[in-house]
């Protein structure tokens, strides 16, 4: 530290306020008046009760060491609790007891020290404030002159300012040398094209719609009016990377009255007797759109409240999402189970730059 303290003085009542440095920086637009009030100096020190009364002093001392004793007891209790409250399988209250008593003991150990030390400082350690002078943060003129001299010597002895080609090539080399590190991070991700992966899901022609998570196929006739089923493609549960596929392929199946559905002409064949399937992945940032309001036929995303109208091909009626939920064309197979007519006709999930 360049700055040395010249000394410290006890804060005496009415002590003169000292000015240390003649140097003055520009005050900017600050207003300086000649008849401003003068700092009256520190008010007289008010002694504490422990300063005046030896009995109180002794009492405070007793309190401090009692608190430290309590701390020791707390730490011992914590060790005892570790043994006394074992964790038993399937017994939540054993977890709760272990947690509570272990925590209580440790907390007692800590708070005893903490409260004791602070109380000690406040009642028994020196009670008046002391004054220390500040110094300007900048170094003294001599120090700064020496610093300039050091740099000048460095420049002269190395010739870095004079030998410009050495300097410039060094700068160039220093800029170039971290660049390989950026390249090295390329393999954080696979070499394949992300866009291709984002455009495909497990859904394709004749893939059965099965229940999430049981994997049971769904018979169209079993779906009652107003019901909603969380659906995954058949075979998903057996995949090694099932979470990645599920994050794209999760579908909501709903049965409405066919006359409630206001279907686009080109999609009239995508539903089956009022049963419609839509991607469950929000087109905003990808949360599962899990809340279905039976009365209004609205789907609500619990993350950012984008609301989709199932009767109107899931167009956005509220919230930050822009695009409707992609619809999965469905039909039934020979056994009456629901199957996909094809995959999704557009990428599911949140928007991305390359999406058009």
């Amino acid at each position, binding site marked *: 530290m360049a700055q040395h303290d010249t000394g410290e003085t006890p804060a005496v009542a009415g002590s003169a306020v000292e000015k240390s440095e003649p140097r003055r920086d*520009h005050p900017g637009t600050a207003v300086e008046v000649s008849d401003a009030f003068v700092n009256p100096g520190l008010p007289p020190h008010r002694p504490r009760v422990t300063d005046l009364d030896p009995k109180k002093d002794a009492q405070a001392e007793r309190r401090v060491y009692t608190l430290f004793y309590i701390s020791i007891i707390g730490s011992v209790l914590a060790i005892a609790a570790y043994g006394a409250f074992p964790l038993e399988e399937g017994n939540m209250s054993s977890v709760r007891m272990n947690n509570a008593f272990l925590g209580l003991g440790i907390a007692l150990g800590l708070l005893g020290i903490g409260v004791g030390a602070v109380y000690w400082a406040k009642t028994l350690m020196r009670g008046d404030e002391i004054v220390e002078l500040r110094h300007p943060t900048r170094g003294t003129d001599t120090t700064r002159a020496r610093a300039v001299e050091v740099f000048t010597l460095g420049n002269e002895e190395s010739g870095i300012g004079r030998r410009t080609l050495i300097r410039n090539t060094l700068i160039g080399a220093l800029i170039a040398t971290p660049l390989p590190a950026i390249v090295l991070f390329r393999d954080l991700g696979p070499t394949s094209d992300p866009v291709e992966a984002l455009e495909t899901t497990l859904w394709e022609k004749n893939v059965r719609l099965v229940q999430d998570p049981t994997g049971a196929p769904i018979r169209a006739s079993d779906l009652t009016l107003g019901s909603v089923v*969380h659906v995954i493609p058949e075979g998903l549960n057996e995949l090694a990377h099932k979470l990645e596929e599920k994050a794209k392929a999760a579908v909501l199946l709903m049965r409405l009255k066919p006359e409630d559905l206001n279907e686009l002409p080109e999609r009239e064949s995508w539903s089956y007797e009022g049963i419609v399937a839509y991607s469950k992945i929000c087109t905003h940032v990808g949360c599962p759109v899990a809340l279905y309001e039976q009365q209004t036929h609205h789907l609500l995303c619990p993350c950012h409240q984008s609301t989709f109208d199932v009767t109107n091909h899931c167009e956005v009626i509220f919230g*930050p999402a822009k695009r409707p939920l992609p619809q999965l064309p469905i039909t039934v197979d020979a056994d009456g189970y629901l199957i996909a007519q094809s995959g999704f006709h557009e990428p599911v999930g949140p928007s991305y730059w390359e999406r058009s």
Partner: protein
Amino acid sequence: MTTADTTDRPAAVPGAVAAPVASRGQRFTGAAANYIDERTSISGAVRELGRKVFPDHWSFMLGEVALYSFVVILLTGTFLTFFYDPSMTEVEYDGSYVPLKGLEMSAAMASSLDISFDVRGGLLMRQVHHWAALLFVASIGLHMLRVFFTGAFRKPREINWVIGFVLFILAMAEGFTGYSLPDDLLSGNGLRIIDGMVKGLPLIGTWISWLLFDGEFPGTAVIPRLFTLHILLLPAILVAALGVHMLLLIINKHTQFAGPGRTNENVVGIPIMPTFAAKGGGFFFIVFGILTLMGAFFTINPIWAYGPYDPSPVSAGTQPDWYIGFADGALRLVPPGLEFVLFDRTFSFNIILPVIVLTGFIALIAVYPFIEAWVTGDKREHHIAERPRNSPTRTSIGAAGITFYMVLFVAASSDLIATHFGLSIEGVIHTMQALFFIGPVAAFFLTKRICLGLQKKDREIALHGIESGRIVRLPGGEYIEVHEQLDDYERWRLVSYLDYKPLMIRPDHRGRITLAQRARAAVSSWFFEDRISPPTTTEVERQHAGQH
């Protein structure tokens, strides 16, 4: 400085009488100190720092809380790493928590459950760690507000403000990465949102997401990667920045509040050795103790209730940890339909816009000290913490900033507000959207009026004293109420503050008025035009002359 110890000690301190012959303990301490000093010259540091003075004020404690909770985070976090398995390999859960038994989940989630149910004290450490993290971010935020509202960021502390700002960002990043590690349903949805946001960024978004998750979301790479960030990279930067923050605190010395005897050239307070060490050290144990009590009795982040991550289910009322709330709120308040396709590319302004707004807001916080320094042109050092009312425009800007943040923060709970108060979600969102614009402006003007009012009241009291309630009849029959004058010490608190006037535009040495100067003058008059000057001695004398 060493000699001063003999002079600054009051004569009668109990137990201060030095024994003529050193006891065994003293001889040992002396020998040990000598051994260390002959190898480290540590006596120099003790000489410099041992009696360094720290001003005392309750608000100076906020930064300490942040520091101490960080130490708690390091201690508990190290314990957790011994049991936590940062892997997304699918395992079948076979721990003590029966409702999840047999369920498939990542090793990360399973080991987090094991920490909670099969390691004695593991749940305690997990909960203390989480509570300490929440307290860490909260105390940094409050500490920043204290520094802002008292002007403690002014020269020479601008750099330390920026370092503190970096610490705040790092704390939030640490919080978010740590929150994601258990790989539970809630945190997985948080990552899903991050993935969706990243994908929405133009040009690089898709690839950033691809690299972050090693392919498609969720992949099997992100948890180990976040773990490395959480326990290695971010803490390393955080500790380094914290070290510089502390070093600059020592070099610049602490600010102190204006008060009698306290000037810009001195520090009045308690010395590190022993009083501040006892208070600060004791306070560390108090913070640790309270956090332990919270971990022992208040459940936080019950991952066993959420279950393992699965991209399909989500519960209603999902919310991030509170410090991410403002970002989530920004996503919710976006007006509808801000996404379009142009040149075969998707522009997701429903994501880009909040990212820009949040970045702008955060950047404004970082550079505020430089803006104010430019406006005032004040090149002096400032070591007196100002009362917020005495810098009305700054305080109002701060209030506007808090309101802005709070609107976003509250918006992150829009669904819960709607369900709890029986309101429509549309109504809540539209109200918050309106408040997003109106709130900060209203807060600005309201705060400014309050500050100016308080300043006028201070001025009134400094000049006229306090109404005593004593009515006196003068010999002439006139009744007056006696005003009690303040003593010098009380008055000093009210009259000692800095006063700036708006900048006057003057041509520069080439006789021109630059655009920068016009801008500065405009901002300066916005800052200072309705200032209230501190009372002067002349005014008091005139006042007294007029009264009698």
